């Protein structure tokens, strides 16, 4: 039992002692942070965890970040070019949103089409229900006697 309790202590010491030493003062492309909006657009596919890279701390995520840093900060690719490179190497599943092409338009346009279609259905339904006479009738103001009667009636419920 006690031995088991030592496990995290050993892990912590190991992590403290042997984690990579980074040169400070001179930030290199290898250490430069990746903007969050870039990470958020990528899925960690290397070890199959399939989490958003921004939320993933596995070794595979570190490797993927290394690739992104190389492309963006060493080779000077912009965000879209980096995404295109990742998609070419790992397939579209590396991107957090399906590229807007081909069959993927079903995902992008489906909700709009369904909602607009639903709206049209409701409009036609209402037209049928309401009928063609849509003249607005002015509500005549209550005469004082009716207003008094209404007040008296309302008091029963208040």
């Amino acid at each position: 039992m006690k031995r088991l309790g030592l496990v995290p202590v050993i892990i912590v010491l190991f992590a403290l002692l042997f984690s990579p030493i980074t040169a400070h003062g001179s930030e290199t492309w290898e250490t430069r942070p990746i903007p969050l909006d870039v990470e958020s657009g990528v899925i960690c596919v290397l070890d199959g965890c399939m989490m958003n890279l921004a939320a993933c701390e596995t070794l595979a995520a570190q490797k993927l970040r290394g690739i992104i840093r190389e492309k963006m900060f060493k080779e000077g690719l912009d965000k879209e070019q980096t995404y295109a490179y990742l998609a070419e190497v790992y397939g579209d599943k590396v991107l957090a949103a399906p590229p807007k092409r081909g069959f993927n338009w079903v995902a992008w346009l489906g909700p709009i089409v369904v909602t607009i279609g639903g709206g049209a259905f409701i409009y036609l339904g209402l037209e049928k229900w309401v009928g063609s006479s849509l003249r607005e009738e002015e509500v005549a103001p209550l005469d004082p006697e009716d207003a008094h009667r209404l007040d008296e009636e309302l008091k029963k419920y208040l």
Partner: protein
Amino acid sequence: MLMAEVGYFSIVLALVLSLYGIIAFLMAIRTKNQALLGSAKGAILAVAFLSTVASLILIFFLMSGDYSIKYVYEYTSRDLPGFYRFSAWWAGNSGSLLLWLFLLSWYTVVVAYSRKGKLMAPYASGILLFNSAFFLFVLAFLTNPFERVSGWYPGAIVSAGAGMNPMLQNPGMVFHPVTTYLGYVGFAIPFAYGMTALITKNAGDEWIRITRRWTIVAWLFLSLGNLFGAQWAYMELGWGGYWGWDPVENASLLPWLTGTAFLHSVMIQERKDMLKVWNVVLVTITYVLTLFGTFLVRSGILTSVHAFGSNELGRYFLVFTVFMLAVGIILIVTRSAFLTQGRSFEAFLSKESSFLLNNLVLVGLAFAVFLGTIFPIISEAVQGVKVSVGAPFFNIVSAPLGLALFILMGICPLIAWRKATSKSLLDNFLVPIVLTAVAILDIFLLGIRKPYALAGYGIAVFCISTILREIIQGTWVRQRITGESFLKALFILLIRNRRRHGGYIIHLGMVLMLIAITGSHTYNLDLTKTVKIGETFEIGSYILNYSHLSQRDLGNSRQAVYASLSVYDRHSGRLLGVVEPQKVFYPTSDQPSTEVGLRTTLKEDLYTVLADWQKDGSATFKIFVNPLVAWLWIGGYVLIFGTIFALWPVRGSQSGAHYLRRQDVIEDEVEGVV
């Protein structure tokens, strides 16, 4: 050790009794045999009792740490605090299904023995019992919670247990699943009564009235489940956000969306005797989506941080989901002719039609989330390419629909029933529209220029002003009639129609959440920085000083590495506090868990994550400044308060044709006066 056998036997016996109960209900309904009906109800009670016995035995094993039971071994360890040992009941597949069964069986008892709707209860109870039978079958033959660890178990010490996933060792994860299940299971009841209305060709709104509280309770728990889930994600996942659009998160959002649509559309049926078919369709979709969510979590068909995948189990859930959907569709198609409308729409511009639009947007939103969630599977099936659909997709697709929903939330309360005139529209909306325009201009002049921020805040002001206008106007009318003081009139107005005003409080909570979502998505800042001890860096209006990196013992064999960051105000230089993001190491897990260092105010959250550290003590931090996030939680709890306010069982929360008819007349007349 005999207890494990007793636990398993309880499940098998409950399965047999549930099958008996279903048959007994069918025969009792057919033959009108009261004795048989009583026997069927007895079977329901027995199933609930046996599921309680099985649950208690599993809890006993979990609390006592009997690692010869596979489930106990897989989800607990000797170092696990008692609080989490108990919560291990729902940490894994079989335990959580047992919890589901436990809740469902007792809900069924309440339905079966309820004095309301005695003619409908036997049918509804039979349908619910059929659900229980499915879960019992799964527990008995696919994922037995009392299965023993037999022989050599790879990679573990049987005397200690493999331990609970560190990410689940968080209070949010203790309450999130239970509340979500209470919501999921709760929606089975309006579904059962909806199907009963179709089976019995009951064209009235009896089933709606019987299940109104059940529906609101289910919705309340599902809302709480989503809220707890978001809080857990915010504190535990360490990516600065609270909603990642993960498939399992979406699975609990889907029935919430359609359930919300159902809650609104039943009002039309109650008041106007309309939308009967649509309500049955909605409740069926909501119920099926709860099963679909369970299928997603259990099948492993989609990758998720929350899922416990098992292909075989998933297959059975899929079959059951499709079966229940098919039954629902067949009943709706064959019986919908009986659900004739009592009244019809009288005008394009009316509260009824605005509710229809509200339903359209909610269902459209649900469809967007559903399509996005399953699109990876569709894509793979159609084009052989698996794509990912994550937050960027959902944010783009759902934002316009979400804003449209909030606009409707502002419009609906101020439109009259039956027919709104252009004069009443102008009277009701002039002040809110002017206030909204002024607010947008104000915000713009303050330097907020992003379209979504302007739209979000503008719509929030519009909604708040319509809600306040409605309440103030009502108070004035009451004052005029009764002569009460403003405060007294306001207080009595609120409590006399709890259902309506509870709804307004819920809307207010939603608007606070909209403000938080808008702020945290449009003006959030983030920074990843590697710094040495003693070094300072800036983000937003803060200066952070990294003072030290240390290690501490958290007890229960957990060790934490934490960094201390002193937080100063950038402008005044005043020390605001110290945050300590940490990584916690567990004996049972290779991966440490992230514990964020958080400084929260009503204005913004300073959210810090210790991402990495080096031998020389330097450390890498991820820092986020998330504006207005506190309002998300405040809004969430306002929503919960509003729901409880609406549910509170005193005068004003009641429904029913008689009351509603009276209310209907009064409100129509009040609207006329106003």
